[in-house]
């Protein structure tokens, strides 16, 4: 946007003589923070404004509205929907993680389910009861085990990352696929930690100092059920990690990721540290996966070692592709979409006559596949791309461009 110096003049100073003799830089930046001018909300007068996370009033208002609505939803929605949405928020965290490594840095990982599993078990072991048949240390303070789940999984990611340094493209995809199969085997066999297949173990125990989170009055103010409390906690974690993800993406590290994705040799030539970028992509993605794993099973309260299979990895890939590659908001949209898909297919299946023999499980499976294929062929930018199309249409309305 070009800057018209005559109209950017602050109105309060309009009648002061000698205004136009001020140095140009002061006119371009009316004050240090570059405050927005009245009546010209889309005019950026500072680089900082242009690069702000919420750079338009519409975005700011929409985000505030969305956050308020989401918090209020905890009190309005029926219990099963609150649980469903909490699970969806946790999946959002995992999807952001996968999008960092696969979307931004271009390192195809089909092994996300393995990292989610590591996170789930680290959290469960740290917070689990000390006296049970399974390994547990009884530290049920939620921020502690959540952080530990993230950090330990990130370390595992750092161990796997060197493989990504040697391989690229489809070779990496196949190797990470092997990681899922190996991980599934390890989870099934490490009985003292996971309880073994078909038996499983209780998931991480959430608490804030006192006893395990349970339905009851919070701070003596309002009665909240366990599901509602977890919903709010998970939402806060998601918002924090989404902002972190967005900031990583627009920092120098995020730019390095994009450069590596687009052409890694060219990136190296212009001075991007390939080793650092690739390892950090895996580490960050694993951190998100670990946090996701720690929370994912806490809502249901139970982990089965068979959960971390190829299908879970494919679900994460589907979230990223359906939502939008290399966008944080897209990851969230995609994860919500995929998490709500079972519910949607249940609704659709109940309307199909039984004689056709299509039930919700079959329908859900087919929908996953069809949606992945359809989005990749028709709208590779995913839901985010659809949103951009709608936005651009209305931007120029009533003209076509």
């Amino acid at each position, binding site marked *: 946007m070009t800057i018209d110096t005559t109209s950017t003049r602050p109105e309060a100073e309009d009648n002061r003589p000698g205004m136009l003799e001020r140095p140009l830089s002061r006119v371009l930046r009316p004050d240090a923070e570059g405050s927005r001018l009245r009546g010209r909300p889309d005019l950026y007068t500072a680089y900082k404004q242009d690069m702000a996370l919420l750079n338009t009033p519409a975005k700011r208002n929409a985000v505030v509205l969305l956050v308020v609505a989401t918090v209020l939803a905890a009190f309005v929605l029926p219990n099963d929907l609150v649980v469903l949405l909490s699970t969806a928020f946790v999946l959002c965290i995992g999807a952001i993680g996968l999008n960092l490594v696969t979307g931004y840095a271009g390192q195809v990982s089909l092994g996300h389910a393995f990292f989610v599993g590591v996170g789930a078990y680290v959290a469960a072991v740290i917070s689990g009861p000390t006296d049970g048949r399974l390994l547990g240390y009884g530290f049920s303070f939620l921020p502690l085990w959540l952080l530990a789940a993230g950090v330990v999984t990130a370390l595992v990611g750092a161990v796997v990352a060197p*493989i990504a340094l040697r391989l690229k*493209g489809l070779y990496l995809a196949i190797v990470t696929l092997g990681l899922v199969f*190996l991980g599934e085997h390890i989870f*099934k066999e490490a009985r003292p930690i996971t309880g073994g297949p078909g038996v499983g173990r209780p998931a991480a125990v959430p608490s804030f100092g006192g006893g395990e989170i349970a339905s009851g009055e919070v701070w003596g103010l309002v009665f909240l059920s366990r599901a509602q409390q977890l919903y709010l906690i998970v939402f806060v974690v998601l918002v924090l990690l989404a902002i972190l993800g967005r900031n990583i993406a627009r920092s120098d590290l995020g730019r390095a990721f994009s450069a590596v994705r687009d052409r890694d040799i060219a990136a190296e030539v212009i001075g991007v540290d390939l080793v650092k970028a690739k390892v950090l992509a895996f580490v960050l993605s694993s951190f998100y996966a670990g946090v996701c794993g720690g929370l994912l099973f806490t809502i249901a309260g139970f982990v089965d070692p068979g959960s971390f299979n190829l299908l879970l990895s494919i679900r994460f890939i589907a979230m990223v592709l359906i939502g939008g590659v290399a966008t944080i908001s897209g990851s969230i949209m995609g994860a919500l979409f995929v998490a709500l898909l079972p519910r949607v297919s249940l609704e659709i299946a109940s309307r199909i006559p039984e004689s056709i023999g299509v039930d919700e499980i079959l329908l859900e499976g087919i929908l996953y*596949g*069809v949606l*992945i294929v359809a989005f990749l062929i028709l709208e590779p930018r995913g839901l985010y791309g659809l949103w951009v199309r709608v936005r651009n249409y209305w931007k120029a309305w009533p003209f076509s461009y």
Partner: protein
Amino acid sequence: MEIDQTARFVQMLSDGLGNGAVYALLAVGFVVIFKSTGVISFAQPALMVVGALSVSIFGQALGLPYWVAVIAGMAFAAVVALVVERVALRPMVGRPPFVAAIVTLGVDIVLRNIANRIIGPTPAQMGDPFGFSTVTFMGASIQQRDIAAFLIGMVLVAALFAFFKYSRTGLAMRAAAFDQEVALVQGINVGTVFALSWALAAMLAVVAGVFLSAEAGLSQTTFTSAFKALPAIILGGLDSVGGAVIGGIAIGVVEAAFATYQGTGTGQGLSFLGNNFATVSPYLVMLLVLLFKPFGLFGTPEIERV
């Protein structure tokens, strides 16, 4: 009880070679598609299941003789593969190979969900003439299924080599694999080559699927065995048909060796690796090989220019 070590070894080897030949067939299918289109088709397991299921239906429900049913199943899978290629993969020409690979993953989910629903909880029987019958050789009882799988696998691979080497179509496929644009200029219909390689890969997968489900039948989990062809092609290198055959057989033998010699019971041999480690051992081998040879044993290293 004293176990005859020779017999045990021969037994292990025959199991390994039989399964290895099956993996080799699947792996060659992967390589044929990769060479001509540059895409790893994750839909191979689904095509295998769909084909083997149709063999079972043709043989059991329609009462066709076994070999006729196998041929019919191969034809059916080839048709499915052609449809998949035309509908889902052709629009992806010119897009990054990873994206096309994910499309095949989507296709795999759709096909497999439908096939699993038809299979149901009880495995579908192939009606094959081998069953559990065995031949005794050097004290080991070798399954006829393994012998048949190895022989038929090797014959098919040899036929495929001959096809690539001596037929005009095979030459066209090699040309398209070498350079698509130049092949186009030479008057080769590259689209036909793509379709043909998908059909070929599907037919190979069906033969593999028929042997994989020869004893226990085709169940909802049989498809996981098809993924073991991936370590095989990684071992051999993504673009080497010969490498895929060697890789497949090597994976089969490694798996059988782990199954035979790992030892069960606590504190014995390699038992700390856990029960059924054999089924995931191919992936471990793959990881180790890739750490030292990033393009497999026989693959062509990519030379990149900026």
